[in-house]
């Protein structure tokens, strides 16, 4: 029988079939952060339980950590207690944690692949919906709630029902300035934020194969914004090259054995999917969201749509409410939208490739006067170090960007980095929900190059047509 990549990943992790439509699924890697874990550790203690397999866990604080003045600790006492609680829990249960002063600290979804702690063929979970990111390496990775965090800690397993399978094929030659971010936003525009609900998505086709592993991570990261708990890409030579030599990756004889196994992590050529969606990358352009849901998105050459251009009545109401919240009028060209802040960072777009793309646009230019704050938040201490070696930090600082310490930062604004009511932000993050970046804040999702271009011009601009010339 032919199998999809998802079938293969699922079947190799079934501990037992419970006979009621659910299976006990083994989890190879569990990532832990400060926000969704304290109640799980408390549950373990109350039940007198211990982690089943300590070495399968890797922890780091990311959501709450400050991105400035790290040496002064966390000033918010509530946030500090949460980060300290993670530290205490990791010490008590002997779980490896990259603490705030460790160069390896960063956003869980950036540090795990960076360390080789995410490997092809793994099942990987974390109490965070963007865990789908790790599927880029041919792993089955999905977000869980705190009860399931406790369940994985205690049993190394989860009770799961197998999802349906969806294949999203993106074919064609990728146009200039169209990135993994633009591809996933175009997919969400097509299938909607609930389009992937109940499915595990495999992304395939030439445009996906042409993406770097980092681009594939951006793509899989936002599978959840299409409603799918898991997104994945088949293993190819890029995957194997990416993993090789990383601290947690196997080496020597074990490496050869692993690689031989990983080469099977592709869907059989005639595998059957429950649903197949096809897109042509050649018709895509850099994307910008205009509303309060990632499906409210259009190309940079587009306009803010009118509510009555949507057929469905519930959708029309949603668009009307979104435009009111966003302070936008229908038919406004996207390029006419002026901004207050720019955020380059998050588990979607804070890897070295993202920072290089933004820096390339910012180089020799200046942030526009109307931009109150343009900030770059690397995804990890190691990304930051690499960027500084390449002197990207200098490019950003010279252009008027702030260069910050790693963490989730203004993607969800749990720390001090947030929008004020009414402020409009070009953001490389993943959610443009009401209040996501601060109460009353208005978020437009874009790629790193598009965010940098918007910072320079003060409004959205097609990064391929920038008129602001590079200064010597």
């Amino acid at each position: 029988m032919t199998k999809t990549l998802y079938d293969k990943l699922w079947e190799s992790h079934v501990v037992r079939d419970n006979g009621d439509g659910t299976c006990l699924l083994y989890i190879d890697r569990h990532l832990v952060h400060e926000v969704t874990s304290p109640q799980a550790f408390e549950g373990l203690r109350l039940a007198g339980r211990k982690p089943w397999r300590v070495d399968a866990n890797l922890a780091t604080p990311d959501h709450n950590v400050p991105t400035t003045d790290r040496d002064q600790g966390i000033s918010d006492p509530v946030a500090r207690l949460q980060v300290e609680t993670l530290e205490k829990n990791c010490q008590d249960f002997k779980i490896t944690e990259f603490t705030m002063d460790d160069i390896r600290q960063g956003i869980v979804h950036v540090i795990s692949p960076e360390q080789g702690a995410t490997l092809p063929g793994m099942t990987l979970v974390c109490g965070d919906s963007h865990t789908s990111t790790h599927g880029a390496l041919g792993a089955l990775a999905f977000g869980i709630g705190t009860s399931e965090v406790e369940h994985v800690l205690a049993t190394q397993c989860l009770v799961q029902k197998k999802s349906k399978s969806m294949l999203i094929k993106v074919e064609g030659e990728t146009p200039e300035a169209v990135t993994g971010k633009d591809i996933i936003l175009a997919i969400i525009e097509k299938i909607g934020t609930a389009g992937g609900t109940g499915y595990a998505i495999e992304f395939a086709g030439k445009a996906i194969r042409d993406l770097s592993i980092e681009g594939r991570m951006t793509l899989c990261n936002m599978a959840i914004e299409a409603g799918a708990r898991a997104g994945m890409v088949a293993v190819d030579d890029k995957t194997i090259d990416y993993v090789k030599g990383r601290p947690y990756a196997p080496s020597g004889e074990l490496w050869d054995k692993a690689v031989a196994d990983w080469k099977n992590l592709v869907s059989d050529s005639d595998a059957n999917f429950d649903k197949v969606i096809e897109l042509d990358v050649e018709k895509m352009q850099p994307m910008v969201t205009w509303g309060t849901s990632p499906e409210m998105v259009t190309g940079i050459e587009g306009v803010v749509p009118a509510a009555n251009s949507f057929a469905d009545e519930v959708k029309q109401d949603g668009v009307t409410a979104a435009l009111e919240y966003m302070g936008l009028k229908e038919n406004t060209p996207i390029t006419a939208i002026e901004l207050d802040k720019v955020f380059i960072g998050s588990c979607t777009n804070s890897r070295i490739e993202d920072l290089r793309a933004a820096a390339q646009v910012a180089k020799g230019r200046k942030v526009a006067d109307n931009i109150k704050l343009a900030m770059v938040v690397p995804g990890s201490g190691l990304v930051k170090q690499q960027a500084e070696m390449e002197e990207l930090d200098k490019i950003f600082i010279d252009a008027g960007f702030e260069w910050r310490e790693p963490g989730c930062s203004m993607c969800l604004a749990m720390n001090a980095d947030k929008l004020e009511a009414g402020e409009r932000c070009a953001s490389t993050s993943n959610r443009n929900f009401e209040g996501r970046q601060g109460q009353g804040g208005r978020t437009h999702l874009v790629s790193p190059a598009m965010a940098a271009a918007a910072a320079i011009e003060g409004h959205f601009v097609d990064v391929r047509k920038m008129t602001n010339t590079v200064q010597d």
Partner: protein
Amino acid sequence: MEKLNTVEGIVAPMDRPNVDTDAIIPKQFLKSIKRSGFGPNLFDEWRYLDHGEPGMDNSTRPVNPDFVLNQPRYQGANILVARENFGCGSSREHAPWALLDYGFKVIIAPSFADIFFNNCFKNGILPIILSAEEVDTLFTEIEKTEGYQLKVDLPSQTISKPNGDVIRFEVDAFRKHCLINGLDDIGMTLEHVDDIKAYEKRRHQEAPWLFNQE
């Protein structure tokens, strides 16, 4: 987890699609290391006129009179009727904790986001999927009748309306069993310790690089 058998009570409408978990419980309240006490901050940004922070006395904050849950007719509601893709976004289990702490035991919608749907069952909340037409009818009936109530019976998988109509709903057999009996998932999984150990032993042979990953 508390057992859930039948739920009868006032129904509140949440008439917008894609209600995300950021709206259900805003991020500033996720700094808590506890599982309880989120109810007063459920839908905080819609419910109050000021900006909420943890530790505030919520009883003295200005409420938004236009927000549906602040209307007198929906006070004491324990059933929520919502639109498509309810609970999308962040995996935060604080969302079902807040809904439960507020008093909601049943949520009815045409569709739910997967992680939220799953999190509900882990906390003694029953999420029910009905067709968009059935949900639409409920919205109309709630609007028309002040004090509109439903009776949800999990064992028979039925919802009884005030006019005597009965709607049948589907629920996964295992999840139904757990809800009715208030069962702890972890305890049940640990009944299969031998299976987990046997899997690990076999897997260690097949894929040794997945073990001793420190």
